[in-house]
């Protein structure tokens, strides 16, 4: 057992630090400015050899163990650089379910950042109850025609492609009538509407209206009716702190807050320090378990719940230290409220833990 870097990990960390020393301050780390230049940041990371570390070599990754992603996250936070763009769940989703042809066509551009993606899952009437979605894809020759309304679509305004869930068989039982598609965002029949969040951010989330947009039948991910399984793979990985790369940012924010404190730190801040350290160590334990080939299903819900508690305790620490009149820290507090909703609400995570891990028959 060793929590320290192996020689290979230490060498990678040193190489990364050298590169990052030149990057600090070049890219904005939060707010709309971050989202506006996220694509550029993604490509800078990739071309320096520091993105897509744990993904398959044949698609542009490096086939390294996932611990290298965590080293990257830690060093990005320490260096004052923006976080690693969160794409792991889409890479895993396509990797598990899409044909080789689709993987070869789409994964390299997703990983190197030359093509940007969004995820069209949630709808105004289908949030936690995702299987009630009503967006339809109707076969028309070699194509499907899409009608419907998606919401909470991250990065929809800059996306080139959308991984879309739509109902292809209205007569099938509701979980089995859904299929997943790779839809071009550059076409008539798609309308974007930005959503302004309570943090004031306007560039992260959008609504997307599909009115006759088209997608070739060959761009279905998996078989007809397999959309629900695709969605479960994606959201399962969307819940893992190690995939998301957020864990290292909490410790960093705690240290920044601590520097502003004059006198004894507020209890909220000390508790946030304990919680963020817990998450850092928890991610290490989970990654180590993956070395045994344990792939995380419902355990992701435990991790998401822990991450949410950490995120929101850091938000409370920000309030305790700076009050509500510091614009940036208020933004990070407001953003923390979304953590218990995005990627499945905390209530949904608790349902999953109760039914699948504890066997309570919820």
């Amino acid at each position: 057992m060793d929590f320290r870097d192996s020689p290979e990990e230490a060498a990678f960390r040193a190489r990364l630090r050298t590169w990052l020393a030149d990057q600090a301050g070049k890219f904005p780390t939060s707010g709309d400015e971050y989202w506006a230049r996220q694509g550029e940041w993604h490509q800078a990371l990739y071309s320096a050899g520091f993105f897509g570390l744990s993904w398959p070599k044949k698609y542009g990754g490096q086939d390294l163990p996932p611990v290298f992603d965590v080293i990257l996250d830690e060093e990005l936070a320490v260096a004052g650089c923006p976080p690693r763009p969160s794409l792991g769940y889409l890479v895993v989703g396509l990797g598990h379910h899409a044909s080789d042809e689709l993987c070869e066509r789409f994964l390299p551009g997703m990983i190197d950042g030359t093509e940007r993606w969004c995820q069209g899952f949630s709808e105004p009437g289908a949030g936690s109850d995702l299987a009630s979605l009503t967006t339809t894809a109707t076969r028309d020759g070699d194509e499907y025609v899409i009608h419907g309304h998606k919401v909470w679509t991250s990065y929809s305004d800059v996306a080139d492609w959308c991984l879309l869930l739509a109902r292809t068989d209205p007569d099938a039982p509701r979980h089995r009538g859904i299929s997943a598609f790779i839809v071009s965002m550059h076409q008539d029949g798609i309308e974007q509407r930005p959503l302004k969040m309570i943090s004031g951010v306007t560039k992260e989330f959008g609504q997307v209206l599909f009115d006759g947009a088209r997608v070739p039948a060959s761009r279905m991910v998996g078989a007809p009716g397999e959309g629900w399984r695709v969605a479960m793979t994606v959201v399962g990985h969307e819940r893992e702190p190690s995939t998301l790369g957020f864990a290292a940012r909490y410790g960093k924010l705690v240290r920044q807050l601590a520097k502003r404190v004059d006198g004894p730190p507020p209890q909220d801040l000390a508790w946030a320090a304990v919680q963020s350290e817990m998450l850092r160590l928890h991610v290490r334990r989970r990654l180590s378990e993956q070395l045994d080939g344990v792939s995380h299903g419902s355990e992701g819900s435990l991790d998401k719940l822990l991450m949410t508690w950490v995120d929101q305790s850091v938000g409370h620490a920000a309030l305790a230290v700076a009050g509500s009149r510091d614009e940036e820290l208020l933004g990070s507090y407001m953003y923390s409220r979304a953590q218990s909703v995005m990627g499945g609400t905390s209530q949904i995570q608790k349902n999953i833990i109760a039914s699948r891990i504890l066997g309570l028959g919820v």
Partner: protein
Amino acid sequence: MDVRLTIEQQQLRDAAAKLADDLGARSVSDLDDAARRARLEKTVASTGWRSLRSDGASGVEVAIVAEEFGRGLVDVPFFGPVLADDLHRHFSDDQPTCAIAVGADAFDAHGLDRVLVLRDRTVSTAAVGEPAPGADLTRSFATFVEPDETLGELSAENADRAHALTLVVTCADLVGVSRGAQAVAVDYAKIREQYGNTIGSYQAVAHMLAESEALIEGSISVLRHAAWAVDELTPEDAIRAARIAKIYTARAARTVCETAVQVHGGIGNTWECIEHVYLRRALTSTELFPVSLEEIDLGLS
């Protein structure tokens, strides 16, 4: 980085778990079963786990046994003897089974006549006196008179590592107690019915138990690191890791045990329900060498 338990550590965990499952207190009436407790005492003594440190074991291995003994409500001394052995080993090859002094009291003194005392860095021994009050029904306090035998002085490093190990063993007990209390509560929620359904099928109950499960997972992770840190990091960092673990596991254990009592409803508030035995043990392990939020390093050093 690889923080998995080794094969040998997994075997130690399985052996400790089996011993605790076979002979620990499974019900409140078990606590009064002198024959069971005598068998437990004989078995624990025969494992040699009370002298893990003088046998060269790491903090991780001590924590593994302490966690399983907390989970299985082992009600013969382990905490006291294993920590006393950690101090005693620096002065003698002979390893007597002793209680450990906590402030003015001897702790984990059941059936023992000597207590090891650490004051500043001086290690001495004293005679165990009369039973003293305490919430724990599985481990007991006693008075002791002034030390009558001085063993010697610890180096600063050994004293700090001993302090880190002491905190870690309290954390391990808290994690074990949390797991034990949660297991009983989850089982009960699957059989107790109200309004025609098991109470665990209602979100109000299920979500509390789900939160407990997440707290236990976080607790396991902080404990793993702190136990490893005892021998592998600088003494200062080992203590820092142990304090983080103590704050987290103590908060988690109280919530988990209180939830376990609540899930049992009226039964949970009766003496015969085992959950208060876990809760009492958790309160005791929290108060043994307590850590406050004011002691937490905010990472600026």
